[in-house]
């Protein structure tokens, strides 16, 4: 439609210039008045004819040419941001667990699993602890995980060496 619009204005201006040039070249005043009337009628035809022959195809503007696929892009950005946040939560939770294990005198490596709450935030829901732990250390750590980090015992996995 935009290209048709430009063409419409160009044809209108061209017609106006032809009429004006024709009027200027006529020496006789009387004939100039007649030519002014004729030129005006011709110009009116130039203005109205394209408008009367408008159809849906010409009026249609294809907005997809101007729009980015923003919803898809934003969803992808949100997914990337969520992935970063999830990784940070896992890292911080693992640090908490490692610090507690160090307090108990054990050295462990931790793998944290997260889940997404209904409200949209991530929370730790499971853990795999690998290291050298005595039975009492394991029980104390397990109690800490259940009470402080709300990770139920059935979701705690200990691999002791």
């Amino acid at each position: 439609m935009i290209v048709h619009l430009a063409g419409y204005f160009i044809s209108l201006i061209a017609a106006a210039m032809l009429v004006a040039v024709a009027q200027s070249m006529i020496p006789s005043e009387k004939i100039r008045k007649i030519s002014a009337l004729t030129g005006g009628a011709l110009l009116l035809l130039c203005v109205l004819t394209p408008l009367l022959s408008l159809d849906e195809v010409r009026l249609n503007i294809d907005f997809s040419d101007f729009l980015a696929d923003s919803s898809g892009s934003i969803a992808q950005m949100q997914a990337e941001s969520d992935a970063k946040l999830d990784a940070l939560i896992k890292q911080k939770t693992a640090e908490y667990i490692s610090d507690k294990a160090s307090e108990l005198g054990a050295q462990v490596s931790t793998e944290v699993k997260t889940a997404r709450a209904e409200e949209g935030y991530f929370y730790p829901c499971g853990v795999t602890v690998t290291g050298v732990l005595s039975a009492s250390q394991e029980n104390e750590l397990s109690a800490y995980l259940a009470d402080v980090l709300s990770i139920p015992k059935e979701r705690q996995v200990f691999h002791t060496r």
Partner: protein
Amino acid sequence: MLIPRMMIRAANDDFSVGLEELFNAAIAENRSTVRSAAALAAGLVAVVLLCRMVAGHEKSLPLRATSLVGSVGITAACAVSLRAMIGLGTETISKITDCSLLMLPALASAEVSSGAPGTAGALYSGTVFFSNLLLVLISKVLVPLVYLFIGLATANAALANRLLEAMRDFLSWLITGCLKTVLYVYIGYLTISGVISGSADAASVKATKAALSNTVPVVGSVISDASESVVAGAAMLKSSLGVSGMLAVLGICAAPFLKIAIHYLILKVTKAVCGTVGEDNHVQLIGDLSSAMGFLLGMTGTCALIALLSTVCFMKAVGA
């Protein structure tokens, strides 16, 4: 195009420092433009004076030779400058749009990480839409209309026809009206979408915070610390990206804008000078040619303003 090392350095230092260095460089780049524009002005004054001298000896005819020759001579003298400025203007507009479209995904990504996906989506899609629409409108409609305006102004000066004068005024109104409409609609979109999406994002953040407060303290602390780290990082990224982006847009358009503005002002001054000695139609023609330069300034300014406004909106939008 002004994106030299000093601009990158300036973006790291201070926005105001970067701005100052940009404009100093733009002024330095345009010293020869003043000389060439002054030479053009001298040529136009010479044509007007010559026509005035000859007009006194010419019989009164329906189509006066001095009007015709003078009008064509004035437009011919300006033709090279006009063509160069129109080319410069369209090239600058294209570069501003490309720069803006390159920056937007990074700004939108930082905005999403700040906890405002609704605002990011609305700003991103809106800015892309209006930037592309303006680019197509300018390249396919407004630039051809500027050429038509110049032709009409020349013909009107030569023939002194009321129809041509009316068409010229209509074109002038159409070009400025299109630019103003696009800008006003974009600002309206930013305002309305900012209110709606900002409220939705704020409500979502509030709901999440309320839910977090019900979790055990340590878990709540872990989650909120992690969220704050992501948001703080995104805020820093937005800030540095935004400043760099604004400096990039200003760097692209500073020198060309100044070049076109110099021609615009010189033609205005020439019109004022010729007004004392020249024929009315020739003086009016010089005024119309300066208006054509004004249209180019308007087009370039509108594109730059859309890019800058969107960057500022991304920077100002507050997340979690």
